[in-house]
């Protein structure tokens, strides 16, 4: 199988892992499953899109579809590089700000009232509905629609309401294939996030503060750690990473429907929860791996199985596989794949989880 067939699954898996790690970060700190988490990506995507369209209209930027070469590497970059950078930064900051708003404006006051974790989880659901309501209004406002109309006259069709944006993807030649920039970006970002988070939680003072606050909040408080602020930073990071994922989703047109508010509850939420739980809800690196695993199961393993069994209709049922993954994980290894000590298995010759 060539590399090309791997690209869509890898892209999806990277996005899922980026979103799963945020669920884990917020669960580890406050013991709340955040239903609004995936919506951060949508909000961030819309803000990034609006910013990029404004810049395109303001600077009269046209698409450049020519293949260029730099240092012997062929690439296509339809928009100037700095626009991508601006969009990326806007998306990640918006994601982080929405997350921190949820933490300080809703979760903290409710927690102080003594609500149990389940009630807090439901309050994130309420916040999610508010975000959907906001998006419905935001995407249909006159200035935005005018902006989209202007932009479409410059760079081609732009349908802002359903995020049908013509942000043509960038390409880079690796070997014989032109690899989509978004795929490469998602992969690189997933790897970088893993490394940065591992470094942050294990080597820096902030990470040690965070881990001690998770382990025993009261003791950390006594030792002078501002637990509230540490948790808020964790939530900000979770939102930041979700915002990055939202920016990447702008370029994968076939995946846009997952975050469009016009179909408010598409199943990506469930896949993200699945990734977070399968990987290990108490382990940051584990949840990145779990998201990757679920993504590969849904977009690569199931189509492969369908081809092997010659049952093409099986592809549609890919969410059922993640359902079983979650059920098996929760029932048999509730702390996720990251909690398995593989050295034990080698001695006992026990079978691992599929």
């Amino acid at each position, binding site marked *: 199988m060539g590399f090309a067939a791997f690209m869509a699954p890898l892209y999806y898996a990277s996005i899922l892992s980026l979103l799963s790690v945020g669920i884990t970060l917020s669960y580890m700190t406050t013991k709340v499953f955040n239903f609004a988490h995936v919506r951060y990506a949508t909000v961030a995507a819309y803000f990034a899109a609006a910013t990029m369209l404004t810049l395109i209209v303001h600077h009269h930027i046209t698409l450049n579809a020519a293949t260029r070469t730099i240092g012997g590497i062929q690439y296509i970059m339809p928009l100037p590089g700095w626009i991508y950078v601006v969009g990326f930064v806007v998306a990640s900051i918006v994601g982080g700000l929405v997350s921190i708003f949820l933490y300080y404006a809703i979760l903290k006051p409710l927690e102080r009232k003594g609500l149990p974790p*389940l009630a807090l989880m439901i309050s994130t659901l309420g916040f999610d509905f508010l975000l959907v*309501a906001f998006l419905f209004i935001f995407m249909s*406002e006159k*200035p935005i629609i005018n902006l989209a109309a202007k932009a479409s006259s410059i760079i081609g069709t732009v349908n802002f309401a359903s995020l049908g944006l013509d942000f043509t993807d960038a390409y880079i030649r690796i070997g014989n294939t032109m690899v989509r920039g978004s795929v490469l970006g998602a992969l690189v970002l997933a790897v970088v996030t893993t490394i940065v988070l591992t470094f942050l939680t294990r080597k820096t003072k902030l990470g040690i503060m965070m881990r001690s606050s998770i382990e025993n909040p009261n003791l950390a408080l006594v030792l002078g750690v501002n637990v509230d602020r540490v948790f808020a930073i964790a939530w900000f990071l979770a939102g930041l990473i979700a915002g990055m994922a939202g920016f990447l989703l702008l370029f994968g047109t076939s995946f846009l429907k997952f975050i469009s508010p016009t179909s408010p509850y598409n199943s990506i939420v469930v896949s993200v929860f699945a990734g977070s739980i399968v990987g290990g809800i108490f382990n940051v690196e584990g949840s990145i791996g779990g998201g990757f695993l679920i993504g590969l199961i849904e977009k690569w393993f199931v189509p492969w199985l369908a081809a092997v069994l010659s049952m093409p209709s099986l592809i549609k049922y890919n*969410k059922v596989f993640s*359902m079983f993954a979650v059920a098996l994980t929760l029932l048999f290894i509730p702390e996720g794949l990251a909690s398995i000590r593989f050295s034990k298995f080698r001695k006992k010759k026990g079978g691992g989880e599929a």
Partner: protein
Amino acid sequence: MTNFVILAEQILSFIGIYYIVSIGLNLKAGHMGIPDFGHAMFFAMGGIVVGNIVSHLAAAVAAKSIPGVTVAGVIASNTKTLTIMNRQFFPHHPFLDIGLIILALILSTLLGGFLGWIASLPALRLRGEFLAILLLTVAEGLRVIFTYTKSLMGSTPTVGLSTPALFSWTHNSGVAATVFTIIMALIVYAFVERLHNSPAGRLFRAARDDEDATEALGKNVVTVRRDAMIIGSALAGIAGTVYALNPFLGGGSVAAVSIFNRVWWTFWPWALIILGGMASNKGTGLATIIVGVSLIWPVRLYSFKVAQLLHASALGINPDQFANALEYAFIGLIILIVQASLPRGIIPEPPSRTLPFEKYAKGRILPPESKKK
């Protein structure tokens, strides 16, 4: 006048159907403390009973007398078969229709309860948020199965199965369906109110509040949780059937899979029971009435006009999207405001009115809350 009747029918149908769904969830989440975030799957079961099983049975009878109707045609050419039956068969066979309605109710109770029993198997091992996430995932997986299995729920997610018009023998099928919905809601209310005061209902709440104490008194908490799950899910199944038989709210003519999503039938019932108060049957009823009336009447009907007003004030918002947004904001704000200001709901959980309690209340000075009786 006809507009008013349709509005009243819509509001009453909404209240009736949502009351049954929410009380099923309240039984699980409020009385028993099982955070069921997969409630929509039991509801969808009721829809399948009407759209699939009942249509097949009716087609088996109709195939003898009416040309163009075959049993296989119920799935293969669903719209055509059901249109023929709805015009030529159901209006002329009132007793068969009533029988089919009763059969649908029995089947959906059984199937919803069966599905609830299966879902209760993991519920016995897990607790809290993890159980909620598991049930959410299972419901989504099941929804995917329902969506793409043609023999279960039709060919495409958005079209689904047409439902049989089992009230077409009456003079006004809309009014008949609404009355049926309200009667079902009242029966369910009587049932859960009885259950609330019965030993079984008190056992649910005892097991919720203190498992160890309940087990020490010789009760098996595992079976108690299973029973609550079965009864609550069966109620959701009934609600699904009532919904599919009702021609309003998008049901009735078409039972599309996309209707049985988790926003409408899991998250909205959660919002309603939070507003009404956990383990409070009257509270859920009041919450359903408040939300039903305000959502259907001012929000859905007048949001368009409000949006037009805002449109004039240069905000430039699309009225359609505004109506959608208002609905979501409404539910979201209900959840947040109630959790912040009224964590126990508008009518908090009442004490159990057991038989000795009533006797005591009759003979002696009445406690303040029982004076109404």
